[in-house]
């Protein structure tokens, strides 16, 4: 118990003093997670919209597959991407292994299904009259899609936040594809694992607290935004 208490105390000091190593790790984590979430959102939101609004044979199968992919272990994705980008893989010559790009690729694969499934759920909940109203007022398919997205924005934003939370907290992909190189591919989670292995709990606990602060801050922003928009007259 003392160990944990000391750890928390030292971690707070580390955070308050804005330790250089800590900042570096946090920035790598944020950068990688931001780009992974951005790319996954660019793929997942329109993809989810298309699946939600189209009728094709095998749609149920696609939905089942997407739901199954939600349970895909990060280690499996790590292995899969590794087989492509390792020196012997077909993308080996690009030299992606143990780079932040490699982590981003793996994390995009991890969260595209999350964003798609949650976008489909958010759009399916939207009243069909929005679509009809937009069309009868002269909107084309693209303009109608924008209307639907706008009305489903909280659900879609929740999907993006959930996806960001998933990647910033994952360790398997970052470790296997990033390699935990200090100052380069060391993220909060891989650093925590390393510090734990070394028996150094202070930095691990400090990173854990930082991670939770970020998660809390993002959720708080989301709720503030949602509350303000719902309550405001316009």
């Amino acid at each position: 118990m003392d160990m944990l208490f000391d750890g928390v105390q030292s971690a707070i000091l580390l955070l308050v003093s804005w330790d250089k190593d800590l900042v570096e790790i946090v920035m790598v984590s944020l950068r990688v997670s931001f780009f992974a979430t951005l790319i996954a959102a660019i793929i997942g939101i329109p993809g989810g919209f298309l699946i939600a609004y189209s009728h094709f044979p095998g749609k149920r199968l696609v939905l089942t597959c997407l739901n199954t992919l939600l349970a895909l272990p990060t280690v499996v994705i790590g292995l899969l991407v590794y087989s492509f980008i390792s020196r012997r893989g077909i993308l080996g010559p690009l030299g992606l292994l143990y780079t932040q790009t490699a982590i981003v690729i793996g994390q995009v694969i991890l969260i595209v299904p999350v964003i798609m499934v949650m976008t489909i759920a958010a759009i399916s909940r939207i009243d069909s009259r929005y679509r009809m109203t937009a069309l009868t007022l002269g909107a084309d398919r693209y303009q109608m899609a924008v209307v639907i997205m706008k009305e489903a924005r909280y659900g879609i934003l929740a999907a993006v936040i959930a996806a960001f939370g998933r990647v910033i907290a994952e360790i398997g992909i970052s470790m296997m594809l990033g390699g935990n190189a200090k100052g380069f591919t060391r993220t909060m989670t891989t650093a925590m694992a390393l510090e734990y292995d070394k028996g150094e709990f202070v930095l691990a606990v400090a990173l854990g607290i930082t991670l939770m602060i970020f998660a809390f801050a993002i959720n708080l922003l989301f709720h503030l935004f949602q509350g303000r928009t719902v309550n405001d007259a316009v």
Partner: protein
Amino acid sequence: MLYRAEDLRRVHDSRTVLDIGRLAIEPHRIYTLIGPNGAGKTTLLKILAFLDRPTAGSLYFFGRRVEGGDKQLNELRRQVVLLDQNPIMFTGSVMKNVEFGLKVRRVPPAERRRRIGEALDLVGMTSFIDYNARGLSGGETKRVALARALVLQPEVLLCDEPTANVDNENQEIILGIIERINREHRTSIIFSTHYLSQGQRLAHHTLLLQHGTLSDGVSENIFRATITSRRGDSLTCQLTGQLTLTLPAPIFPTDVSVVKVHFDPAAILLNPDKGRADGNYLSGHVTGLEQDSGQIRLTVDVGVKLVQFLAMDRYRLERPSIGEKVRVFIPNSAIDCSRVSPF
């Protein structure tokens, strides 16, 4: 012709919800679509608004066949607006809602502001321009939805139950606006309603929809007929058990004994010349006289209440009065029948 439809069918989950043999709608007129719940009114309005595609049949808009391609539908939708029974407001202000259709048409901002002002003024909602559209009452929402449609100056305004779930004051306002835009802008209007009286007060034409089938006329001229005998090219049938008619057999299905027959009120003749063989002569008493859209709606009790429309000059010539005994002639060409039953 504004709309022309032939053999229009719409099937939902293997159930036929709309089955219209022929439909012709003239431009610049007000049509009311009357029928009970589930009669197919909303389905027909959605097809006419190009928001739903018929399962079979052909539809023409201003003589041009509606093919169903995305590009053509979008172009056609920009001439027709459907006002939903329970309109939904987009997130944002009343102004943003009314502006939507103009924005997608890339109307310049200055013209947008002018037209939004005019539309809101027409529906009496100018003071609500900056209100949150989601905070309006049911009647106010309908009026803003009407402004959102009218701001686009459509060729056709389709309204699905425009006065449903609205208080009396807002009902009058909405009906007044419909009448006014038809009169001033010659906008063609088709609106559905449960209420025969409301429809007849406003409309130039009434369309009756029952079980997905359209009858041009009013409901009184639709009867259940039991075929009692068939002989060669003619058959005898009883209307609701009180009146026997001899009718041409080919217009009836051969495999049923109970059918629905409709007599076109405009084709029935009052006090006709004798000696015609292509129809039925009947005698009865005048029970109703009413002026309706520039013609006289005459009800004659011939065993069943038969409605016929008289042109004004014919009425002046005949001058039928309530209780007077008259003769009517139903030409075979005024009869159509369908197997839809019961009704």
